[in-house]
């Protein structure tokens, strides 16, 4: 294995971050923790985009998509936090277990 950093390194990094994010989302009961996990997942996707853009033929497509994802993540964080606030006001907690009251 040569010392140069290649596509595989980025993909592995991305996979690690995705797994961390997924783990966070699945195990956290704190709503804000879940939102953080989601951010991790989105950023792992961004790394993939940029890596493929850099090593693949397409020059700007991946970067533009990455910018879109960042924007999306920001919007998602706003709405997510608003939901969390609403939950807090109703249940005086941000434990997602509380929302089991909403079951059908």
């Amino acid at each position: 294995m040569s010392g140069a950093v290649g596509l595989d390194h980025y993909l592995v990094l991305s996979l690690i971050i995705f797994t961390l994010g997924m783990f966070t989302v699945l195990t956290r009961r704190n709503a804000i923790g879940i939102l953080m996990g989601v951010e991790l997942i989105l950023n792992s996707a961004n790394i993939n985009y940029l890596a493929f853009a850099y090593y693949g033929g397409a020059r700007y497509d991946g970067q533009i998509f990455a910018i879109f994802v960042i924007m999306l993540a920001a919007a998602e964080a706003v709405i997510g936090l608003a939901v969390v606030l609403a939950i807090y006001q109703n249940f005086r907690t941000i434990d997602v277990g509380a929302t089991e009251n909403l079951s059908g």
Partner: protein
Amino acid sequence: MDHPVSISIVRYIVVLPLIGAAINFLAGAWLQKTFGKRIISVLGCGVVALAFLLAVREFFAMLALAPDSRFMLDSLWPWIHYGGLDIDIAFWLDPLSMVMTLVVTGVGGLIHIYSTGYMHEDESYWRFFGWLNLFTFAMLVLVLGDNLWLMFVGWEGVGLCSFALIGFWYKVYPNTTAGNKAFIVNRIGDLAFVIALYSLFAALGAVGHPTLVTREVAKYAPMLAGMPGYLGMTMVTFVTLMMFAGATGKSAQIPLYVWLPDAMAGPTPVSALIHAATMVTAGVYMVARMNFMFVMAPATMTVVAVVGGLTALFAATIGIAQNDIKKVLAYSTVSQLGYMFAGLGVGAFTAGVFHLMTHAFFKACLFLGAGSVIHSMGGEQDMRKMGGLRHHMPITFATFLAATLAISGVPPFAGFMSKDEIIWQAFAHGHTVVWGMLMVGAGITVFYMFRQVYMTFFGDFRGTHEQEHHLHESPPSIAYVLVVLGLLSVFGGLVKIPDFIATFKPFETFLEPVFSSPLTRQVVESGIHSRGTEAALGFVTFTMVVLGWLVADLMYRQKTIDPERFSAAFGGVPYNWVLNKYFVDEFYDFTVVRPYLAMTRALAWFDLHVIDGVVNLVATVTVLVAWLSGLFDSYVVDGLVNAASLVTLDVGGRLRKLQTGSINGYLYGILAAVMVILLVRAMLRV
């Protein structure tokens, strides 16, 4: 004649009575209640009097023109312009319509004034004057319309007013049926008239000049000569016959005269205005107006002459036996109209129109005199209950006598000038049979008129004491009108004197431009021109007149001959027939009215049972089908809809358990699903 003088005053003559009618109908009841009957009188008489003054003014304006250019046109606005038919609302004043306008507004105006006295007690005073004014308007439209359609509008308008005025006292049932009879009988004639107009228009269209404007019809009518028409006649004969059929309805000639005697149910001024002086002469006017076509159809001319002669004689004989003072005059009117038609039919157009005018004078006078008598007798119309009235009503008596002498044809009264001329012309143009009928009719006329005078004004009073106590001369509004009309009856005929006495005939000269088509001239000029013969025949007629008077005098004044024994001498049969008007009403009842009613009843039965049956069947079937459709709807369609909703509800109930509310649970679910999808894809790719 191609360039009629254009004026704009005729419209006011026509419109004034319309304004009167409009105000009377719209505000009359209120005006009468608020200001009394006087304002209705002033309004009703005023508009007609104004129209008369305008007409007189136009008359002098017309005299100032050269005889050949005495044609005035007042065009208001375009009316119908469609498919080659160009008709305007326009009024056409020529010598003939001038004479008619003067008669309608003049005699009509007098009768309006008379009505203020006669109808004074009536609570529907305003309604009466509204209808009288409307009648005057319609009659003026008829007379002055410059085309045949406008004439027809007036023709129908006067029919409507006649109907309404006959049934004016509609609370008495027979009055309304009399109105209906007049209206329905007139419809028959009107239908013929419309057929004539359509045929004429179609025929003129076929030669390239579709028009109904009278003066243009006159111009193009010669092109129709020889054109085949309908029913095997030439077109001209057909059209003129149909027009004459229309005239028999409006002018009460055989066979459609039956409505006029019944029309006496109306108030007496109505009988005088509509059923003696003006409306019933509309047919005469129309034939005279269309003279250029009638002369093209000798067959029609003969029919007109014979029908006129027959009617003159036939109606006169019925007049003999009537006891109702107005019925006598009604049959007399029918008879005198027969004279007019006889005059037209033999080609003496001027004489016919002249008799129309003089008849308007003396017959209006007679009717109004009769009205004065009825007024004084408290509504009694039976002459058998009158008698000796000359002492109580000297003015009525004098004027009635003057008019009687006029209708009898005693020189120099108006009737002599016109009637003698007609009788002579019938002979001169070779219609000997018609001449005979007219002459005998003249004798009978004198008989029934003097019978009436003697029964009413001579002898002893035969009514009740109460009536005798009540007898009085009529109020001034009635008496003055009688005097004016009486004077007209005496002197009104002096505008045309028979040739064998003097050559003074401005009336004929005045009318000449109207009867100036070459063919009309030819027909008018034909026949004998012999003053000696005319004088001799005039003497014969006068002998008949004296004879008629003598018989009446012997029977009803001196009473040396008992009329009952006289009729018994013939077994009473002729008398019985005459008394019952030859059973013509019964004949029509049997042949026309009853079959017609039977037919309507049969149709009503058919309608009630067959048509209604079909309709009801259809309705029943529809209800049944609707019921079945309702069942299908509520069980099948609604069932499917309900089933769908139930299934949805059930499935939803089961599925909602998946909605746990646990976010982690959802995320695991998502993860599991993604993994399954990836797994499946991987397996499928391998």
